[in-house]
């Protein structure tokens, strides 16, 4: 516990020294450029991207941050991204980045022509092309968001956004911005509507036009919806959807599996504890439920139509074994998960 903390402290001390030296070296070069030039440059960079997020690399970081004397005429909110980790679902990098872009775009929309547009700029940095900048900020893990206020001299002293603050999306990032940089968003986050107005109108028109034709076919009784099999599979799907706890997974955003903390190569499929479940777990159990029910139905309705007696008998046996296995599996898992051990009550004299 003690040693890593001390090491971090040492590292920080060293890097602060390095940063100070770097700053000393660079201020000489930067002093020539006026602050307004930098702001203009940032603005032009911003106009190149549709959402207004400026993509920084090592060169730009030194140009706009390290080589500029404090107080800078602007603050930067920087999103640290890593292309190689974007595929890891639990980090939710693409989602967070799009939330960040939304924040940037909404900010631009709410402050079209006022002065605060030049006070804050939204940027992102990619790990592979700008490892130096990551070192400079002391960022070792993503997702990570940092605010560099105008007066911060060392980049390590910039304000990191808490995990809980950015994980709730653009709204909480805006709260962070307001509380730490005193820059208000000036309105709600402007999320693009899921279906645009034109699409809605088009859909409405299509429905209105097709309605009479559809209804006529319905009255005649010949459509897909008169197919019993479709209804039955839909019904079974709803059942599966319900009992496998899919709603639970959607509402609580549960992942399919969890990596084991003690052994990273292994995955945890089943979560012990009754109020919670993982995605794969629910589907597995839902599948087992379905198997037993369907075996029963098939035994009663399909197998009896087979001509061959031995085939009937074989399928019957397989069905019985399958059902037995599935039921005992589910009951075993349920007892394990909830920790209840169910036993019958019998008179004391029986013991």
């Amino acid at each position, binding site marked *: 516990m003690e040693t890593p903390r001390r090491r971090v402290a040492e590292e920080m001390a060293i890097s602060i020294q390095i940063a100070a030296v770097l700053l000393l070296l660079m201020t000489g070069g930067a002093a020539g450029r006026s602050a307004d030039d930098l702001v203009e440059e940032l603005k032009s960079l911003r106009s190149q991207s549709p959402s207004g997020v400026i993509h920084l690399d090592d060169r730009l970081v030194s140009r706009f941050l390290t080589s500029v004397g404090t107080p800078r005429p602007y603050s930067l909110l920087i999103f640290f991204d890593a292309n190689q980790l974007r595929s890891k679902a639990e980090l939710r990098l693409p989602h967070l980045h799009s939330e960040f872009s939304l924040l940037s775009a909404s900010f631009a929309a709410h402050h079209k022509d006022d002065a605060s547009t030049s006070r804050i700029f939204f940027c992102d940095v990619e790990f592979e092309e700008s490892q130096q900048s990551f070192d400079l900020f002391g960022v070792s893990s993503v997702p990570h968001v940092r605010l560099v206020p105008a007066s911060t001299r060392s980049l390590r002293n910039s304000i990191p956004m808490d995990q809980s603050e950015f994980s709730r999306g653009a709204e909480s990032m805006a709260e962070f911005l307001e509380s730490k940089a005193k820059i208000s968003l000036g309105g709600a986050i402007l999320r693009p509507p899921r279906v645009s107005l034109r699409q809605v109108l088009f859909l409405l028109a299509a429905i209105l036009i097709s309605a009479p034709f559809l209804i006529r076919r319905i009255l005649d009784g010949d459509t897909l919806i008169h197919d019993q099999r479709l209804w039955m599979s839909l019904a079974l799907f709803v059942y599966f959807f319900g009992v496998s706890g899919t709603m*639970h997974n959607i509402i609580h955003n549960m992942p399919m599996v969890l990596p084991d903390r003690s052994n990273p190569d292994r995955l945890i499929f089943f979560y012990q504890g009754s109020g919670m479940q993982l995605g794969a777990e629910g589907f597995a159990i839902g599948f087992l439920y379905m198997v037993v*029910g*369907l075996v*029963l139905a098939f035994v009663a309705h399909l197998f009896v139509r087979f001509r061959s007696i031995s085939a*009937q*008998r074989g399928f019957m046996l397989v069905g019985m074994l399958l059902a037995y296995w599935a039921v005992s599996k589910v*009951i075993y898992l349920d007892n394990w998960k909830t920790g209840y051990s169910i036993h019958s009550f019998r008179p004391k004299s029986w013991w």
Partner: protein
Amino acid sequence: MGAKAAENGAKSSSSAPSPPPLKAFFRLKTKQQELLIRVASLALIYVLAFAVRLFSVLRYESMIHEFDPYFNYRTTLFLTRNGFYEFWNWFDSESWYPLGRIIGGTLYPGLMVTAALIYRLLRFLTFAVHIREVCVLTAPFFASNTTIVAYFFGKEIWDSGAGLVAAALIAICPGYISRSVAGSYDNEGVAIFALLFTFYLFVKAVNTGSLAWALASAFGYFYMVSAWGGYVFIINLIPLYVLVLLVTGRYSMRLYVAYNCMYILGMLLAMQIRFVGFQHVQSGEHMAAMGVFFLLQVFYFLDWVKYMLNDKQLFQSFLRITLTFAISVGALALGIGTASGYISPWTGRFYSLLDPTYAKDHIPIIASVSEHQPTAWSSFMFDFHILLFLFPAGLYFCFKRLSDATIFIVMYGLTSMYFAGVMVRLILVAAPAVCLISAIAISATVKNLTSLIRTKGKAPLAVSGKGSSSLKASAKASADQSLPFQHNCAIALLVGAFYLLSRYAIHCTWVTSEAYSSPSIVLAARGAHGGRVIFDDYREAYYWLRQNTPADAKVMSWWDYGYQITAMGNRTVIVDNNTWNNTHIATVGRAMSSYEPEAYEIMQSLDVDYVLVVFGGLTGYSSDDINKFLWMVRIGGGVFPVIKEPDYLVNGEYRVDKGAAPKMLNCLMYKLAYYRFGEMTTEYGKPTGYDRARGVEIGNKDIKLEYLEEAFTTSNWIIRIYKVKPPKNRW
């Protein structure tokens, strides 16, 4: 005919004359024997359903459970003492201080009126019972009645065998027991009976096309509306069902009669309940029923025109014009109604059922309740056990023998199953449907198997005459002549089925006894030596309030305990479980999550005299106020932005130990819960101030209170009451 016979049988068996001699018994005809067996098993099931729910009385005592039932009990008491009109006009100044609450207009009176009537009836029959006993036993009584309804329902949709199995299943289904044990005097206790009864009557009306059944279903609906807010499920499921029948080309005159009568009369009757009022014509939740009503008229009209017009071509074009016109007019009316505010939009609870993530993001007061959480698979297993396996099979059987009635039960099963996935408490609504559908699977399978066993040696013709209408029986029968092992196989399967059913019975009994019979106002735990330890701290605290505080004292607590404080402590509360005013609750949440001086100002503005907190650190009781505290912050923060959730968290983690957020360690709730706890040794080998509910040593052991003083702490520290000091003398 069978129903009538069963009713007659029930009458004769209840009087139970001296048993006939054995010889005479055997001389009964087969039909009579069957009837006797059926009635006897129904009577046994009726008793069983009641008896299994008495575990809570056996294990604890005859008392009212949980939170909401205390309000129901208090109002029932008021009703029996002051009469119906006083009750109807009751303005309660003891809750929601200083706002008060109009009780008569903001509750579903069905439960209280039912209990009061039963009480009157018993009094009339000179049984000297206390109203509390009536309240305690209302839910089991109605659960027994539900089994009878389930029998007739099963008979209506399949056959009497399925009805019997359904009655047996629902009598002990844990999903239903969880809310109908003795003492859980809540709306759901009678509402599930009313729900199933309405559905049964409606299906009967659709099957017969009789106005009398439709009228009965309207009255069933009225009773349901008077008893529980869940009536919205009926008023949406029935139109949906009618719509599906229309779409699949099953429109009939029977349907027309049943729905129109039920909808119009049911609506008019429901308007008599003040809490519901004109919602049937004004709220968006009820618009589907109205839309289907008009659609049905259009269908009838078209039928009539088709009958009048002989030209098919002409009819087609007429059809097209009318339908386009009708649909656009309907859409326009709905649009204008919603835009002008005449039709209110959906309420949050309803909306959160359709879009489950809605509540989590927008209405913390709904999302905070544990019974509103989404369901994990283990809860399904816990509440339904093997019924879950049988459900798909039952669905399959229903589809194989599709009729208006089976379509209904399939739709009821599926919609309620979906809703049960969204909220844990709605498993209750799904329970009857799951029992019925599973009963179909069991009954059909067992029937096949037994007929297989019986036909051994007999002519196959006898089988098909046995009444099993499905294909498979005859198919199996024709196949089995050349099968020497068919008989054994069937016996093996039958034994397997009975084994499974007996496991179900064991599971249900066990679950009822261990998990669902706890009153949650008296807590039980296993001691170190395996003996039962009872914590009766809640009642201790409430009686202390009743005996030791001024009669007009105002008590502030989190809303969970409001009903209990008013019912048992007889003191005024600031907020209670009827969460009608979010701002008021948020004010309390804000007080709890502020520093003491700010909290004192809020409490002064609300005239609070006592503050009550629930604390489980000493006993390891985990649903205490510290664990609920984040919800107080969230709800408070939803109205007052000065309260911010991240201030109470450390890296997104909720902690109470040394690493906790400073705001957390000094807020009012933390101080009140842990006041002087730092001096206490709770567990051997652990430092002082070790919180057993969260398993950590607390972070702030030296708590000084400036504006409050400790007034009372119960013997196990579960409830702590503090007195708010009067303002300091300013001179």
